[in-house]
Every structure is written in structure tokens, then in C-alpha cells.
């Protein structure tokens, strides 16, 4: 049942021009970024030869590209998650799901998987660009894959948060704005921990960016994995609770 809902969600994304335009815009922006990075790398190449342990093309092109990609995708997540429940509540199509023999977990997970699948497609397309460098340069495939995985996990976690916020309101735009706020706040929350007078391990642990950065360095740490996993799980659980609660309140 989860997959029926996931496929429906994924397909309806592509039935509207929204998904296509999002993919096109992301790809266009990041392609421009990619060209600039490759150009920089070519200019630097001469000086890099002289260095011991010089950073390679993966560190100088792939990591910065993925850092920008994370920004762009985080800005796009609210646009896709805002529809999930608030739009359905608004147009009263949620009744179809609520009256069908489908449990709340299946409903939430199905929608979640649908959007995450879309983002996996997007990450796949983004990864293709640095992958093309492998034709002419020694590429650290491990680091590239770690980066792609990190980006997917980051976006999946953001999607879970957006999905929860979209159950809270019947106005998609409100869901989008709150999601955007939450995600940006979590992105910069560790800036406070480096500021003077505030030292907090908790804040830096909460930061979405901290955990993503270690993936970009090629570090595959189970604690980062656990962070994204727990983050998603917490918001999905909240969404399920909220939907059950709606049956009592609405």
C-alpha cells in the first residue's frame, strides 16, 4: 500500500510542470556552478603540481558543487512538501485516503517515499556532472558517492520535516514558509556555537550542515547516518500522530 501511494505521489509530481521546472532550474544553476569550479581548478592546476598531498579534483570541484547543491535543494524542499498534506486537506481529497483501508503510517511513509524518490532522481542528475570528469581526470569515486549519499540523506531529512509541517496547516504557502524557516535555522544553528560565549555541543550536533560536511570529506560515520535517520523518523512520527489527532479534532 505504501508503494501505491508513493508511486501516485511521484507520478503526480511529474504530471505538473512544477517537478520539471524544478529539475531544470536546479540542473541549470548547478551546471553553471560546475563550469566555474572546473575552470578554477584548471587555473590552479599548475600550482597544485608543486605541492605534496595536493587536494585533487574531487576536493576542489565535487565537494564545493555538492555544498551549493545542498543549498539549492534545501530551498526547493518546501516547494514540494507543502502540497503533501495541506493541499490534500484544502481540496478535501484527503478523505479518499482516510476512508480507504490504509493505515496512517502507510499514508505518511507512502507520501514521504514519493517525494524522496523525486529527490533521488534530482541527486542522480546532479551527480552525473562530476561523474563526467572521470573521463579525463582521476576521480575519487568513494568521495563522490559519499557526497551523493550525504546529499540524499540531507534532503530526505528535510523532506520529513516539510511533510510534518504540511500536516499542520491547510494553507500550502504557510507550510512552505515554515519549512523554509526551520531548514535554514537548522542549517545555521551551529554558527552560534562558534560565537563567543556560547559553546554548545548540542547546537552543533543539531546542525544539518555539520553532518553533511563530514560526508563531503568522504567520512562515512555511522553517527551522521544515525542523525539523519533519527531526524527523519522523529518528524515522520510526529506527522503520523498529527494525522491521527486530526480525526479527533477536525
Amino acid at each position, binding site marked *: *500500500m505504501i508503494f*501505491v501511494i508513493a508511486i501516485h505521489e511521484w507520478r503526480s509530481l511529474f*504530471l*505538473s510542470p512544477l517537478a520539471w521546472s524544478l529539475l531544470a532550474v536546479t540542473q541549470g544553476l548547478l551546471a553553471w556552478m560546475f563550469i566555474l569550479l572546473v575552470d578554477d581548478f584548471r587555473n590552479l592546476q599548475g600550482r597544485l603540481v608543486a605541492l605534496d598531498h595536493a587536494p585533487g579534483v574531487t576536493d576542489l570541484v565535487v565537494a564545493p558543487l555538492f555544498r551549493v547543491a545542498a543549498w539549492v535543494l534545501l530551498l526547493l524542499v518546501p516547494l514540494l512538501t507543502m502540497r503533501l498534506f495541506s493541499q490534500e486537506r484544502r481540496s478535501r*481529497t484527503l478523505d479518499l485516503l482516510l*476512508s480507504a*483501508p490504509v493505515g496512517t503510517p502507510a499514508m505518511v511513509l507512502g507520501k514521504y517515499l514519493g517525494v524522496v524518490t523525486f529527490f533521488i532522481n534530482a541527486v542522480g542528475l546532479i551527480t552525473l556532472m562530476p561523474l563526467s570528469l572521470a573521463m579525463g581526470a582521476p576521480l575519487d569515486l568513494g568521495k563522490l558517492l559519499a557526497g551523493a549519499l550525504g546529499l540524499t540523506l540531507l534532503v530526505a531529512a528535510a523532506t520529513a520535516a516539510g511533510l510534518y509541517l504540511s500536516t499542520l496547516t491547510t494553507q500550502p504557502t504557510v507550510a512552505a514558509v515554515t519549512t523554509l524557516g526551520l531548514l535554514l535555522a537548522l542549517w545555521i544553528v551551529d554558527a552560534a556555537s562558534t560565537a563567543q560565549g556560547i559553546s554548545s555541543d548540542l547546537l552543533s550536533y543539531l546542525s544539518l550542515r555539520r553532518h553533511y560536511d563530514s560526508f563531503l570529506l568522504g567520512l562515512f560515520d555511522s553517527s551522521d547516518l544515525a542523525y539523519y535517520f533519527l531526524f527523519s523518523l522523529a518528524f515522520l512520527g510526529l506527522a503520523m500522530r498529527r494525522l491521527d489527532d486530526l480525526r479527533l479534532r477536525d
Partner: protein
Amino acid sequence: MRVEKHMMDEVLVQVEGLTRCHGEVRVVDDISFTLRRGQILGFLGPNGAGKSTLLRMLVGVLAPDAGQIIINGVDLLDQPIRAKQVLGYLPEQPPLYRELTVDEQLHYSARLHGLNRRASHQAATRIKQRCGLTDVSRRLIGYLSKGYRQRVGIAQAVLHDPAVIVQDEPTVGLDPLQSRQIRELISELGQERGVILSSHLLTEVQTLCTHVQMMRMGRLTQTVTLADLERQPSTRLRIGLHTPPPLALLERLPGVEQIDDLGQGYFCLHHAANAAPTASLIQRAGDWGLQELTPEHSHLEQLFVDLILKTEMDQ
């Protein structure tokens, strides 16, 4: 024959003490009823009587504050997924995705109700024929007219062959011809299933339902079967006269208790049951220019009007 009889007596829905509050107000207040196979049960009541809330609880969209709902022997609150398998629901506004085609919508709904790919395809083909949707199966729902959308909604509700069909104002917003088609479809479906519908339209309930429950401010006020109503003798006679005599003369007709002058030669004669002054009217038919003589069977209407008046008085 005995088996069939047994089938028809099968209880499909059993509701007891259903209550739901909205703040201090009891939107649905301690409602109990039973639906058997082959029955079409209509909830009739003025706007805001709590009909929609009641129906939404019956299909598990809303949770009740108190009470029990048994669908086909399964407790809806304990085992919602199992109980919902035999339910088909059409809300007041059909839950349709504007960006899907009719085929895609029906397919999705069938899959949600546990049909596999093949079965859902077959079911969709069958129901499209029955609801007259074959011609529009590739059209986007967003571009369909209201009547067609309503039909897609109904098709979606009965696609998986549910034993119990719950419909909230199924013909609202349709033109008379469309309403008639939808009603025919519902009564056809109701023959081998159980149907629950709500309406504020009297004629709809009268032509469609086998049983009627009157609802007012969250409570059931009266249960009637339409067969009972029709068996009751009429106590009103509507007449139309070309050259009406003075009112006093009409009042002197045998059995007449009260006369309403409806204007333009039309009158409503109230009389005792089984004592209609038909014979005496026909005797004078020539002099008075009798052009219409209709006994009025409208107990349901009377009940309904009383109900609404009472509601207004309470408010």
C-alpha cells in the same frame, strides 16, 4: 429461498450511542441505528443537523467521542483497516485529483482499496460502463463538468464492490436529469448492498430510500419506513376549480375540516382519514369547472417541515 431471506436480513452496519462534540456543542448526540442488506437509509435534516459529521464517522474519517460502529461484523474503531475494506464513501465534495485522468483516478482508488493491477483494471472498465464514463475515461478531471465529476466520485466509491456505500448528498448541484440518473444508479446498487445517504432534499429521499431517519441538532427524531408512510391514508385533497363557489359552500362539503385557499381557483381541503369528499366534488364538477383533484401523500413533507420549524423555534 431461505438462504436468500437470510442474506437480506444480514446486518451490515450497527451503530450504537455515537456521539461527537465540537467544543461544548454535541454535533452528533447519542445516535443508534441498524442497516441491513438491501436497505437504502436516508438521513434527512436541515443544514447543520450533523448529517455529514455522522457519515464521516461511519467511514472512519473522524473519530467519535463515544459509541460503537460495527461494519459487517468488524469494529471500525478497533480494526479500522479491516472494517474499511467493505466501505465505499462519497463525501459531499468528491475527493478527486484535478491533474489525473478519470482512468488514473479510478485506478489509484482501486489500488488503495487493495485491488491488484488486473482486478482494478477490470473493475474500472465495468464501473465506467455503469456510470456512463467510458467516453471521458482519458479526460482530465479538472476539465470535467460537475455532473461528470459527481459520477466519477460515485464510481470511485463503488469500484471495489463494497457491501456498504455511504454517500453524502450524492445529487447536490446536479441538474434534474443528472440527478435522476444518479438516483437510478444508487437504487440499483442498493438492491444487493446497504446504502446510507444524507440529503436535505425531500423528494430525493422519498424516491430513493427504503428507510428514513430524521435528524435535528445531532439527534435522530424519527424513524420511518417509506412503506409505512404510503400505507397511511391521505388527509388532504388538492383541487382546482374554474369557477369556484364561495368558500362557505366548500366548507359545507361532507368530511371537510379546514380549507386553505391557494389562490387562482386552487384549494387544499383537509379532511378526516378515509373520508375524502371526492364523490360530492365530482357531483358538482360541472358547475364549478373541476380541473384538478389530487390526494396529497405528504406525511414526510409534513414531518420535515415540522422538524425545520422546530429547529428554528429552538434557535
